[in-house]
């Protein structure tokens, strides 16, 4: 088991910068998700770790040794792709065996390892099937077994769940996490699905345009986003215009709230304040509006309110029972708890 480090990695494709000064340290046995919109460089980072692409500058270290220029087949990585990566001409067992053959593992040991891996992903009865005889979820489990069979130093997962339907996706997501913890392997997981990242990661690395935006535990990324990008990308956010006053006091549409994160900003700055739906309360002291939607979500209820002053929709997350009796068209007031809000100064267009 090992660590994986990216040290100020830069990668360009033509004039397009895919990664810029990218630093990341994956600790031993840890699962880190690379999360971001498409084109943010997360797949490029993974492909550089796998050796399919090479960094223009910077370095990649595995267990402290430099592998920046090592070709893919000389590295010891286990990779699971988005889909259809099983060799269609080989059976499940032979697919899992592939990496052991290239390493010239002796036959008996090979068969034992294949049996052990198929058992791990619970596909032993399918050993003699061909990939096209399996469902999408089963294929991805075989791909996982194949990647782990060679006892790689690092496991690389490139959106392994995105081609599956919702139910299989959650089941396989939890299974990947179970297997990853069981094997204790250092893992890099690429995804554009924040829910997936929040659910299975030890830490999440949020990326945008080739840079690392924030690295932190799922709770940190969700609760204390350090940049407005992270705040908007992870989870739902209500965005309201605000003017910064003295000592962290912020005026949102004439209504004063306390936003600790605004203390760093100068008095009189125009800003956007970003507040989670669960940090807003219905019928508190605040902004007037009318209810436009009530969406029951099982554990809670999401209430949409159109504000009078701004003609903007905000969402409020209410715990079970609290939203009883609220219906579309009701006149309400919306209170804001600014303690966890993120504030982003508005950049004035140059005159």
């Amino acid at each position, binding site marked *: 088991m090992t660590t994986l480090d990216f040290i100020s990695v830069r990668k360009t494709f033509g004039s397009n910068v895919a990664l810029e000064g990218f630093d990341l340290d994956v600790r031993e046995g840890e699962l880190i998700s690379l999360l971001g919109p498409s084109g943010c460089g997360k797949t490029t980072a993974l492909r550089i770790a796998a050796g399919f692409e090479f960094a223009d500058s910077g370095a990649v270290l595995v267990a402290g040794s430099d592998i920046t220029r090592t070709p*893919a087949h000389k590295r010891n990585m286990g990779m699971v792709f988005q889909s259809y990566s099983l060799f269609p001409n080989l059976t499940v067992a032979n697919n899992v065996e592939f990496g052991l053959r290239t390493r010239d593992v002796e036959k008996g040991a090979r068969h034992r390892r294949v049996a052990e891996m198929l058992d791990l992903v619970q596909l032993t009865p399918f050993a003699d099937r061909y990939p096209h005889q399996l469902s999408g979820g089963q294929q991805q489990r075989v791909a996982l077994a194949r990647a782990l069979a060679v006892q790689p130093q690092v496991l690389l997962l490139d959106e392994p769940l995105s081609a599956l339907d919702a139910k299989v996706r959650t089941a396989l997501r939890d299974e990947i996490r179970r297997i990853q913890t069981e094997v204790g392997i250092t893992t890099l997981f690429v995804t554009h699905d924040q829910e997936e990242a929040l659910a299975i990661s030890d830490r999440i690395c949020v990326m945008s345009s080739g840079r690392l935006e924030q690295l932190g535990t799922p709770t940190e990324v969700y609760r204390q986003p350090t940049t407005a990008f992270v705040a908007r990308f992870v989870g739902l956010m209500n965005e309201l215009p605000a003017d910064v006053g003295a000592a962290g006091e912020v005026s949102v549409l004439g209504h004063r709230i306390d936003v600790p994160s605004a203390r760093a900003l100068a008095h009189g700055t125009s800003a956007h304040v970003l507040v989670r739906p669960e940090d807003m309360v219905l019928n508190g002291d605040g902004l007037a509006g009318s209810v436009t939607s009530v969406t029951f979500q099982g554990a809670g209820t999401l209430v949409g309110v159109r504000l009078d002053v701004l003609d903007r929709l905000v969402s409020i997350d209410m715990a079970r029972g609290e939203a009883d009796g609220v219906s579309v068209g009701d006149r309400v007031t919306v209170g804001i708890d600014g303690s966890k809000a993120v504030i982003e100064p508005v950049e004035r267009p140059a005159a």
Partner: protein
Amino acid sequence: MRLPKARALIEFVTVLPYMIPAIALVAGIFVIKPHARWFLNSDFSLIPFYVVLSLPFTYRSIDAGLRAIDLRTLVDASRSLGAGWLYTLRTVIVPNLRTSIISASFLTAAVVVGEFTIADTLLKETLPRFQATFTAREPQAGYLLNLLALLTTTLLFILLSVLTRKRDSSRRSFAAALLAAEKHQETAS
């Protein structure tokens, strides 16, 4: 696979032998003849011409096979599992293009067996040329021979479809190529 922009150009080049009649190709021979007499006289001189002629069929067939599988991902998977280029070619690429490669070879054989113009110009005694001279000499036996030749190619195609039946990933696209080849064969003989 690696250069998507080159595809349009390659596709255009591979249909050129279709558009340009064989006789135009042969006319070119006379331009180079003074410089390449030793080559044109050798038994191997037909090879480059036949390579050009069969290019549309081999290219189409293999291209269809490549499109049917996600070769890029398979190659990446193979490389990350520790396989070098040769091992990847042998265990991943060739087995998965088996159908395409077989049909490409059969189509090439069919084209070559039916080709008359170039062989006649280069004075090479190939089967179609023999058929022509033999028919001129012995009309009745000659027609029988032609019929036999036609039957043989038909049998080859039946054999081809049996061989490739198991895996039908790229079958439909080369069925079209097959018809085209059959037509080519008829016009030649």
